[in-house]
């Protein structure tokens, strides 16, 4: 149990370092939903779009290489495809409405004491907790 916390702290530090690189060198906020969403809805164009694409290539490729070399970690994702589709739609619509997700509002927002980031984080954690109560403990979908 405790080793997982240490891995969490180390991995978290690397996530923070990633955000620091993207901010201090590229001058951008490392928000996954914004980076992906701008490519999906076409609001990121030209050089900005290719910069985002390179970010996503790294985000996809390096864990893939680690998984090949050291073995793939278990994701424990539910096998209920309807739940997955509903969750994906909710995450997609919700993060674009809120203009941020766990990385943008959570990591980047809270660290600069942004009120919006803090409020967003409180709401998505509360909704997430409620979601687990309803879908896991009440309905037994997951």
């Amino acid at each position: 149990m405790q080793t997982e916390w240490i891995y969490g702290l180390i991995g978290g530090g690397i996530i923070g370092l990633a955000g620091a690189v993207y901010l201090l060198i590229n001058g951008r906020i490392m928000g996954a939903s914004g980076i992906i969403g701008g490519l999906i809805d076409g609001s990121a164009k030209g050089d900005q779009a290719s910069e985002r694409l390179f970010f996503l290539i790294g985000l996809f490729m390096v864990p893939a290489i680690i998984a090949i070399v050291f073995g793939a970690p278990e994701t424990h994702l539910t096998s209920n495809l309807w739940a997955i589709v509903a969750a994906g739609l909710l995450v997609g619509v919700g993060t674009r409405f809120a203009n941020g997700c766990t990385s943008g509002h959570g990591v980047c927002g809270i660290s600069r004491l942004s009120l919006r980031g803090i409020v967003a984080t409180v709401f998505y954690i509360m909704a997430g907790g409620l979601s687990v109560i309803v879908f896991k403990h009440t309905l037994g979908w997951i």
Partner: protein
Amino acid sequence: MRRLFAFIAGSLFGTGLLISGMTDTSKVQGWLDVFGQWDPTLAFVMGGAIIPMAIAWRLTIGRNPALGGLFPPRPEAKIGRNLVIGSTLFGMGWGLAGLCPGPSIASLSYGGIGGTVFLLAMFAGMWFAPILRNQLDNALPAT
């Protein structure tokens, strides 16, 4: 250069997500499951990420990004309807599957069919969101 450092940042982000266990949906749902077997790992990840990020924000004061341009301005501290509705919808989906946008890309190579389905549904949601937002703004103009 912008692309190279974007690639490096993305690579670090993916590595951190994998090492921290955040591509494991049971750890995310375990953190949200306050009435079950509560798993505090996510708090360590958040804490670990916020420290270097807070230092980075400090370092932006009086400087410019290394590759030129300006740092993103502080957004207006306005708590709008969309922020609250969006975060609530996002949280519901996050709890339901245990995935958020970053880990959904990071775990794509080993997330199986479910991981791919989640990503496609998320793309669809992201594509649909601006349309839905316009509809909402027309029906109920924000005050």
